[in-house]
């Protein structure tokens, strides 16, 4: 139980990732596939942020007066790099989602449906 609680972030990450992959592979509706993609990308963000977390640590900003002569104990500060990376990854994710929604809009205009099997049926009939 103890181990389970310590690893809870990573377990949730794994569950979210599998939910995302499941939605992308199994779901028939294109909109649900996009939602699956978003869940999948979010799970990776959770993973990175969990890497940066330390027990009893604070935000990585040095106080004004603690200059070079002070000894800095890095275990008191969270790792800022994964946060910075994930900020970029979130932006990339938003762009991907936007493009996917635009494509979905075009598909709906053309086929009047978002169910994948119906679209394939329409394409085969022609």
């Amino acid at each position, binding site marked *: 139980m103890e181990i389970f609680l310590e690893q809870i972030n990573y377990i949730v990450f794994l569950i979210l990732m599998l939910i995302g992959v499941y939605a992308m592979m199994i779901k028939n509706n294109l909109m649900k596939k996009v939602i699956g*993609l978003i869940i999948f*990308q979010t799970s990776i963000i959770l993973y990175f942020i969990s890497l940066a977390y330390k027990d009893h640590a604070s935000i990585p900003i040095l106080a004004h007066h603690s200059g070079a002569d002070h000894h800095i104990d890095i275990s008191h500060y969270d790792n800022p790099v*994964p946060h910075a990376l994930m900020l970029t990854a979130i932006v*990339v994710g938003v762009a*991907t989602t936007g493009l*996917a929604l635009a*494509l979905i809009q075009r*598909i709906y205009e053309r086929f009047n449906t978002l169910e994948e099997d119906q*679209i394939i049926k329409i394409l085969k009939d*022609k």
Partner: protein
Amino acid sequence: MFDIVNLIIIPLFATIVVRIVGLKYRNITFHITLFSLLLVLFIATFNLFNIDVVSYVMGGFSAYKGIELVGSKFSYALISAITLAALLSLINSSAVIDRHFNLKKVNYYSLYLLAMSGFIGLCLTNDLFNLYVFLEVTSLSSYALLSLGNKRSYLSSFNYLLIGSVGASFYLLSIGYLYSITGSLNFTEVSNIIINLDSSIIKNIAFAFFIVGIFIKMAVFPFHFWLPNSYHYAINPVSSLFASVGTKVSAFIFIKILLGIYGITFITQNYDLHLLLEILVSLAIIFGGCFALIQNRIKRLITYIIVIEIGYIVAGMIIGTDLSIKASMYHIISDVFITLGLFLFVTILSFIVSDKHTVNLNYSQLYQCFKKSKLASWGFIIIMLVVIGLPPTPGFISKWLLLTSAYSAESYIIFGSLIFSSIVTVVIFFRILESMLFKTEFSNELTVRKVNFSMVLPLYVVIFILAILSIYSNELFENVINPFIERI
């Protein structure tokens, strides 16, 4: 004289210029695109002949804190090749774009430039996360561009978006694992740290995620299914850009990370992994060949030829001897032009047989093409000979090196699959030759148009470059490819 960062900045800046200028003057956007790509080509070739390995740190932060770009002779050569390919397909396609997509021209050219700046960034960057960002820049613009096309193109582009994002996310996850054991994102530093970790399970997990992610981007066999659909249904200019440039740059990333971070011994000394990858890549080559053989449509056939060619590049890396790595690096550069030549011919062919921008081309139309434009048909035959690997061509050089090194490294599975794919391409070649020279019962229903010389010219430029690549192959191996391998 020229900082390497200019290579990325010029197309990126031109993207914005095209968008702004295009609001008012739509017709000069083509010239801006042409000019900026010419400038990049000039700088890259200048660097190729004049300077050696240089490092550039973004914003003046040191390489370990900030982002580092490293330009080597090989990356300049690859950048020159892909820029030249982009220029040729731009010139070849401007008439098609003018006629069918005149209103979307501004978007088209700005996305074209954005994709190019991403590709160039991928060749230069020395930072793991920066590589992810460039990967997404190119992928997003390719999803948008590949959605131009016929009825199916939106759906195939949407499927490509899903699978491509999953691939990029797997790559991101592998960065996360690498970062968690090394605490760094710089290639050089990560490889220095990771070399001392002999048997870390996290290192292996990171490698597994990386392999899946990059194989999706490269379209290696079990993950190839997005490529034929999205390239087949898109319009010809777009598919000729991404087919000739996209997969090859991903292959370069694969080589850069495999050699630069893990080291080739990571796969050659691990027996199970080596065998697994050998089987995978042999299946890629064999299935690519089988699928190519059963296609009736020319463009779809060519997309499967890309799958085979990518298989060759990966096979060279998997065999893992010095010679085979050199062969696959040589094949990256020559394959840019082989694929480009095939797709340029498809553009000409669909121009000849139809007025629409997308058309199903099958073998019977080759006969008309041969009657109408002998020049283009002979160009296509020459490029098919390169695909087969007839002796003086670049296709022969890389294939011969691959075969000998596969034999001497005792990877007979890859050796067999290489032989098999050669036979398959010969069969396809004779099928093409037959349908070009002899009339079939289907081949007299279409109205055909005459093609002007400016469309055929890029095809012959490609053949000329392929000839140069084969004549100067020794210089290429000695001065460009060897230093790259020795440095890593």
